């Protein structure tokens, strides 16, 4: 193992054990730091999963409260982000059950109250950029209609850059299921985009 890799690994381990100790003590400074560090990732994940800003905001708060309450259960074998998203996921599932939301492909436009922020083009000053923006909107609207379990694996993989094993840990699904969901999600997404264009 080279020196840089060893240093990185050592830092990650040190960080994890620091988090374990801090969470057991319910250290408010540590919790502040964690909220600061993971706020956008958690919010993005919840937005992708729930398709509803207000629900995502509720779950965002609830997730951090749960992290604080259950901090004693965290152990350094887990990566903190994986554990955090697994908690958020469980709360989201509870929420969906409570609200009896159906997690399926749903093309009902009435449900599309407030989709997550569509991708923003980097330079919206040219015609190309406008075309790109339009395309991004199309993709956002297609994504919005995908079932939650497809959106989830897509965001974990392509937004959060998680490995397949980490996705399996967050979702509690076997690796083979994660792979097939990813494959299928991309196929559905691409098919819908193609049919939109044609």
């Amino acid at each position, binding site marked *: 193992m080279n020196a840089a890799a060893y240093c990185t690994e050592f830092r990650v381990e040190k960080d994890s054990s620091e988090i374990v100790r801090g969470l057991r003590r*319910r*250290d*408010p400074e540590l*919790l*502040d730091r964690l*909220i*600061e560090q993971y*706020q*956008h990732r*958690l*919010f*993005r994940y919840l*937005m*992708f999963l729930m398709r509803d800003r207000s629900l995502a*905001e*509720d779950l*965002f*708060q*609830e997730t*951090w*409260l749960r992290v*604080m*309450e259950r901090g004693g259960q965290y152990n350094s074998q887990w990566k903190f982000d994986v554990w955090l998203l697994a908690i958020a996921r469980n709360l989201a599932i509870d929420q969906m059950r409570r609200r009896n939301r159906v997690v399926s492909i749903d093309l009902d436009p009435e449900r599309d109250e407030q989709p*997550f*922020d*569509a*991708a*923003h083009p980097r330079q919206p000053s040219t015609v190309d950029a406008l075309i790109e923006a339009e*395309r*991004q909107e199309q*993709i*956002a609207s297609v*994504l919005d209609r995908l079932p939650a379990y497809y959106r989830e694996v*897509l*965001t974990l*993989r*392509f*937004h959060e850059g998680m490995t*397949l094993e980490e996705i399996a840990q967050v979702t509690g699904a076997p690796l083979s299921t994660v*792979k097939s969901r*990813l*494959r*299928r999600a*991309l*196929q559905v*997404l*691409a*098919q819908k*985009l*193609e049919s939109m264009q044609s």
Partner: protein
Amino acid sequence: MTNEKTHRRARHLLGERSFTELNREDTAWLEQHLEACPECAGFAESVAQAITALRMSTAVAPPALVAATRRSVRIHARFLQQTESRERMLMLSCALAAIWGALLQPYLWRVIRWVAEGLHMPDPVWQATFVVAYLLPGIAAAAAFLGRRRTEDVASPGVSGRRTR
């Protein structure tokens, strides 16, 4: 292999390629197929664009939400810390009381028997009195402990109606 099967295989591999490395044989086959098949090449383009779009799309946590979350987490953390420290004290007191009670048990037995003999009480009565006197402090402590927990569950901030903004 029929045409449909070929396309299906290509699309399967295109999905697979986006999250794992294909082996050399599959890669070569896929590239060859994409060169020959505009339909699958278009599909590959769509997959690539979808992935790019996924990576570019944004959702940022609103600062007000983050601030409110920090506040409620701090309040709730303080509350839990205080509760836990009180619980620890109470447990310690109960443990000390139990040890103290066990040590005093023979003396208490003798005192009650001496009083009972003076008052000419029948054996079952003074023995029952001893059991009640011995258990009463423990029962009272347990009742106080349970009562306190119930009150704290109701009063816990940030748990019921969590959203505080």
